[in-house]
Each structure stands twice: as structure tokens, then as C-alpha cells.
């Protein structure tokens, strides 16, 4: 009996796995990823093209990622000209990938070149979005994403929608889920993530693009803590829940919100675009067909768009690309000739891009060595910086160790929740000091001064080097007159910060 149940369960599991990986569909979702991802990567590659010699070649200052891992000459550095050829071909292959022209070949070329050049520059090219993009390009190259909405499918002029196994889309979905799981592990290893310290300082950094919303958000650690906990919970459950129909759009919607919000708060642009484009891999054939039906309804409402549809402006381009003529009476030799013509056009364009790229880069003279006066002279260094070079090593000033001095009445995750500077008599409040690492063991006092500047309460404590926060609990006695008092944070020998506080009836 038990054996038969086990057998049935095994068969069910096998059937479920079979359905999960090998059911068939038209790969609209992957086609959308194929269209958008290369366009995003073009935004990465095109600005770097004119610096290819400097960033990726032995004629410049390549910064291989492998050096961080103590591995030498991985991958081998190309010469300057070869680096320019690689970048030029990469630009064209990304365009071809997006258009779906010799899709699988273009994607394979893009994958190899993009990964190669990323590995050569860990300072300004290789980031985690590069690694994710390489994975996505690999999966797209394995898939049949070029069978719809592509030049290839248009050239083949098939009347029936092609259907293929769904496993490449499943791999993409699992990749995204495992990325989030790995990212959650990182957060679990970082204690300061939960106390808002890590994120608060990320929001204040100027290493990325302008992030005005981040600077404002850094004043609301309670929101940061709440969002941090929601984010890690979301990352942990993503791979387990996203398959449920009821949860899919909720989970993905949260992901879109999370990634979009990193632009104004952290100054990130490419990373959210890569992640959101990868979400298109979650769209099933049914989802896309629903969108198409909705789009067609919208389309019919606009007369201008309908007219545009009737124009056949791309007929000559179709012939150039070697589109197969409609109908089943086309001979095999005609098909063969069309395919070869298209292939030659594709290969010629890639070859021309390499040649034109090398010529253009040569004329640009990236190091400006062929100017009238020869190579450029070095720029003199900033004299203010030079004047400070002989300064002895000094420890951090106490005032620079203080991030903030806040007053509130309750805490969340150890952080003050409700900041205020006005309290009634007999109402308790907390004064919280936030320090930045690294700092030594410190003796700090938080004193209360009356409106005339006389110290009426003194409270000190040792703040050990592991602590990033110190709290002082206050309760103003009812006999104290109302007025504006001052909280004074000081070390044994100097005042660091003062903050006014109003005591009311």
C-alpha cells in the first residue's frame, strides 16, 4: 500500500516537474526580455566605447576583476585595437539581439563579448548588474526568444505561432529568485542592515548619481527599518511564492517599486532597469495575449494609428533582410538564397562596425597624443592638497564621530521613532546620540542647561567602541519652569553639540 502511494507521489512529482519545465508556449515573455535587455546594455556600452582602449586593453589601465581574487591574467587583456573591435562588434550585436536578427548568434556574441570586457574592468564596468546581465544573455541564447517579434520570425513569415518548451523561462525565473535569496543572505550577515545604519549611510553617499530623496529619507530611520524588514522578507519568500497566481503580481509589483525607488534614493539607474526587464520573463503567453487584446482595443480607438498600420514602409527593408516570400510554393533554393543573403548582410554589418569603429577611434585619438604639440602635458595637482600632504596622521576629531543628536519618546529597533523638540513637564523623553564607526571607547555627557545656560542636570556614560548609539532617559520634574532649555553633548574637555528643547505646561 505504502509502496504504491510512494510510487504515485513520485509519478506526480515527475509529472509536475515535466509540466513545469516542458510544457509548451509561444515565448513572448522571453522575447520581451530580448528586446529590452540589450537596449539597456547599450546604455552601458556606448558611453564606454570611446574609452575602450583605456579601460579594457593592454594599451591602457585595465582593472581585471581577477586581481581581487589573486588570479593573474584572467581573462587575457586584448590589445587596444582589438578592444575597440570587441566594443564595436558588441554594440552591433546588442542591436541585432534586440531586433532579433540572427538572434541566437547575436545573443551568443553579445554574451561572450559583454562578459569578457566586464571581467577586464572591475572599477567602472563590472558590477552585479553585469553578472546578472550575463546570466540573462546566456538564458536568452539558449532559448527560442527570436521566434516571435523579431526580424528572424518576420523573415521566416510563418503563419502559425511557434511553441517551444518553457524551460528557459523557468531558468530565468529561478535565477531571479535565487539572486534575491542570495541578496537576503548578505543582509542577514550584516547586522547594521536591520538597525538602519548601513542604509542610512548609503542614502547619504555621493558615489552614485544624484539622490536627493535618499538624503531626505535618511532622516527617517523608522521608515528605513520598516522597509528593510519588508525587503528582506520579500527577498526570502520571492522564489517560493512567485509561482502562486494570487501572489505573482503582488510580489513582482513590490519588486518593481523596490527597484524603481533605488533611483531617487540611491542614484542607481542601470541596475533597476536590468532587474525590471528580467521581470518580463514572468509574463506567460496568456498574460501577453491579454495585453495584446487590450492593446488592440486601444488601437482601434485612434484613427491615426490605424492609418499608420496600413502603410507598408518597411517592404524594401524586408527584401534587404532576406524575408522569405509568403506561400508554400517557395522553392528550397529560393529559401536558401534568402537565408544566405541575410546572413551575409548580418556578417558584413558586424565586420563593417569593427572596421568603422577602429577608424573612428583612431581619428578620435583617445589619448590626444597626435596633437600639434605632441602628447598632452600632465596637469598640476591641486596646491591645497599638496599643502596638506605633510600633515601627520591624526585621529578623527570627536565632532566628526557624531552623526546626530535626536530627542524622542519611543524607539523602534533601537532607533528613535518620533522626533520632537517640545515636551510637557513630567513627560519622559529620550536623548539619543548616533555615532559613526570607527570610534574609540568614549566618555560622553549629555547635560541639561536651563534658559540662562546653567547646567541643571548632568549625566555621563561610557560608550564602548562597538556601540553606535547611546541613550539618555529624561523625565523633567513638574517643578521646573517652562521655557527653552538646552541639551549639551560633551566630552570631558569640550562641548560637541547642543540642541534646544522646549518644556511646556
Amino acid at each position: 500500500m505504502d509502496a504504491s502511494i510512494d510510487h504515485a507521489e513520485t509519478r506526480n512529482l515527475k509529472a509536475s516537474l515535466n509540466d513545469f519545465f516542458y510544457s509548451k508556449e509561444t515565448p513572448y515573455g522571453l522575447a520581451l526580455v530580448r528586446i529590452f535587455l540589450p537596449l539597456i546594455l547599450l546604455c552601458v556600452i556606448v558611453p564606454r566605447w570611446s574609452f575602450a582602449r583605456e579601460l579594457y586593453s593592454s594599451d591602457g589601465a585595465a582593472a581585471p576583476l581577477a586581481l581581487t581574487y589573486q588570479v593573474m591574467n584572467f581573462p587575457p587583456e586584448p590589445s587596444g585595437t582589438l578592444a575597440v573591435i570587441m566594443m564595436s562588434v558588441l554594440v552591433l550585436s546588442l542591436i541585432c539581439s534586440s531586433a532579433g536578427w540572427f538572434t541566437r548568434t547575436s545573443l551568443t556574441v553579445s554574451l561572450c563579448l559583454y562578459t569578457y570586457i566586464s571581467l577586464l574592468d572591475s572599477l567602472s564596468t563590472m558590477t552585479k548588474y553585469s553578472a546578472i546581465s550575463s546570466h540573462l544573455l546566456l538564458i536568452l541564447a539558449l532559448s527560442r526568444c527570436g521566434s516571435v517579434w523579431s526580424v528572424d520570425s518576420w523573415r521566416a513569415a510563418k503563419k502559425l505561432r511557434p511553441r517551444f518548451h518553457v524551460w528557459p523561462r523557468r531558468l530565468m525565473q529561478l535565477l531571479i529568485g535565487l539572486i534575491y535569496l542570495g541578496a537576503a543572505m548578505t543582509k542577514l550577515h550584516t547586522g547594521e542592515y536591520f538597525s538602519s545604519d548601513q542604509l542610512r549611510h548609503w542614502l547619504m553617499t555621493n558615489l552614485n548619481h544624484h539622490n536627493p530623496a535618499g538624503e531626505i529619507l535618511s532622516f527617517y530611520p523608522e521608515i528605513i527599518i520598516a522597509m528593510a524588514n519588508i525587503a528582506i522578507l520579500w527577498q526570502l519568500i520571492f522564489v517560493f511564492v512567485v509561482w502562486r497566481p494570487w501572489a505573482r503580481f503582488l510580489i513582482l509589483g513590490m519588486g518593481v517599486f523596490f527597484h524603481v525607488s533605488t533611483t531617487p534614493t540611491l542614484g542607481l539607474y542601470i541596475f533597476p532597469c536590468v532587474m525590471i526587464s528580467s521581470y518580463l520573463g514572468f509574463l506567460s503567453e496568456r498574460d501577453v495575449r491579454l495585453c495584446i487584446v487590450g492593446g488592440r482595443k486601444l488601437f482601434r480607438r485612434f484613427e491615426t494609428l490605424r492609418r499608420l498600420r496600413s502603410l507598408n514602409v518597411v517592404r524594401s527593408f524586408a527584401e534587404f533582410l532576406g524575408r522569405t516570400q509568403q506561400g508554400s510554393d517557395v522553392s528550397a533554393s529560393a529559401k536558401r538564397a534568402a537565408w544566405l543573403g541575410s546572413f551575409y548582410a548580418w556578417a558584413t554589418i558586424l565586420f563593417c562596425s569593427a572596421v568603422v569603429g577602429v577608424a573612428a577611434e583612431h581619428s578620435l585619438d583617445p589619448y590626444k597624443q597626435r596633437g600639434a604639440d605632441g602628447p598632452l602635458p600632465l596637469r598640476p595637482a591641486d596646491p591645497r592638497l599638496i599643502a596638506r600632504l605633510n600633515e601627520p596622521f591624526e585621529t578623527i576629531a570627536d565632532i566628526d564621530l557624531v552623526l546626530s543628536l535626536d530627542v524622542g519618546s519611543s524607539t523602534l529597533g533601537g532607533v528613535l521613532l518620533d522626533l520632537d523638540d517640545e515636551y510637557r513637564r513630567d513627560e519622559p523623553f529620550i536623548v539619543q546620540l548616533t555615532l559613526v564607526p570607527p570610534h574609540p571607547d568614549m566618555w560622553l555627557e549629555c547635560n541639561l542647561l536651563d534658559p540662562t545656560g546653567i547646567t541643571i542636570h548632568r549625566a555621563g556614560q561610557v560608550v564602548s567602541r562597538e556601540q553606535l548609539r547611546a541613550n539618555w532617559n529624561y523625565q523633567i520634574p513638574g517643578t521646573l519652569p517652562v521655557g527653552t532649555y538646552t541639551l549639551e553633548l560633551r566630552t570631558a574637555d569640550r562641548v560637541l553639540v547642543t540642541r534646544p528643547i522646549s518644556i511646556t505646561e
Partner: protein
Amino acid sequence: MHGQRDGRARCLSEGFPVSTFRVALFRFSLDFVLTFSTRQQYVPRDLSDRVFQDGDSGRVMIALRCSGDCAEGLFLCLYVRDDAMKRWSTHAIIAVYLGILTMGVVVHAVQFREHSHPLKYFVIWDMFCGWSAWEQRTHILGEGESGEFYELAPGPWGSFSAYSENLSRQHYDPFAEHMLRQAQNSLVRTSHEPIRRILVVEESWAKKYNLPAHLAGKLTPTPTDKQSYIHIRDIFLPDGTSVEHRGAWLARQAQAALLDNPRLEQLTMPRFPVVAMNRAE
């Protein structure tokens, strides 16, 4: 299967190259793979050298041209268990790929040999793993024989700002592993007096000074002037010889904070590094 007509065999190949490739592949594998059989079957002449799917069994077969004594329209067909082979190769791709991704998550979770090979960067998802309360900039300077100092990064031909509006790439090298290379590249591509030394200089300031004044005032109402700290991290000769390595400013500050303890300082000071020697030598 014998005498099967055109209508029952469906051509699977779409174009010349695919068909040719598969024909070549199957011809090659004829001697090695025993998963198919050969039969004679009628197929139209213009579909020769094509891949077919058998109308009844669904198995994939391939029609090859006969040698001279075959009847017209009769071809030698190879029946290949193509679908099964394809399925197993797909199983292998899925298993290997998911296995590698899972391995990345696991080694990261248990922190086991996370940095043993550069390719692990592609399977370990440690985004935003580090943080610092300090904003840092790196200056790469060359000291000429005249005593004049020059800026070696970015080069005078211009800089590339990857992730910000105006920050060149040397600011994204927290481990200072690629500074020397950038300096040497600038020296090779420019005209200059003989250079005596290359200096890698760190400039650091607390991130609270990044905030605009109206926001900084909310942190600490007492106004404070921005103070930055200058620290020479490395000194090289132009040929790359390391003259002095003083370490990162943050690491030195952390050590200074730890040693700001008379008892610990007293215990530490006499303990110089010792290299054990063999007494017998």
C-alpha cells in the same frame, strides 16, 4: 513504415543550413550512436537531405540521397531517437545551471570559500555588502624631480564617470589594487619632467557633510565646518617598486581607536614581529 507517402511525413527543417548541419551531425554520429535504425522509405525528391518527423511514431528521421541503384524517390532513412537525446541534454543543462546557482547561494550563506575564483562573482549575490560612514576620494599624484606634483588620474585627456556625474574610476577602487596601473598609463601617454615618486593619497570626510546645509542642521543644530582627512596610502617608484605602504585610512583609524587604551598599548608596543630561525644553521 515502408512506402510511407509524402503526406504522412512532416518536414521539420526550415532552411538549408540547419538541415545541412543536422545531416552532417547524424552522418558523423552514425558510427558512434546506436539509437537509430536504417530503412528505405519513399519521400519526394525535393525533400531529400531534410529532417522529418514520422507521422505515426513521432520519431525523427533523416532522408539521405541513395547511391545510383536506388529507385527514384526511394531514400535511405535514418530513424533517430532525436527527441530523447534532446530531452536528456536539456535535463543536463537545467540540472547543471540550477546546481551552479544553488552552490553560489549555499557557499555565500555558510561563507565558505566565497572568493576562491573570479567566476564566483557570477554566482554570489552580495550586493551592498559593505558600508562606510566615510566618503572617500583617491588622488593619484606624481612628484617630479623639480618638486612639482602632477595629477596622474584621471589623465589629461579626460575622464570617464561610470556611476556618477563627475567621479572618475580611481574613486571606485577601495582596495587600491589598480592605482599604480592608472598612474603608469598616464605617465606613458603624456609629456612631463622625470617623475620621482607616485603617491596614492586618500581624502576622507564624514558623510554627514554631504548633506545640504538645511538638512545637516537637523542632524546637529550646532553648525560644523567640513573637515577632511588626508592620508598617503602608498608610495611607488615610477617603475612600480613599492617604497612605502601605509594601509587604508579607515583601517588605521580603526586600529588607532582600538589602541587608544594605555594598558593595551603597553602590552602591544614591545611585541615586535618575530621570524623563527633554525638554531642549527
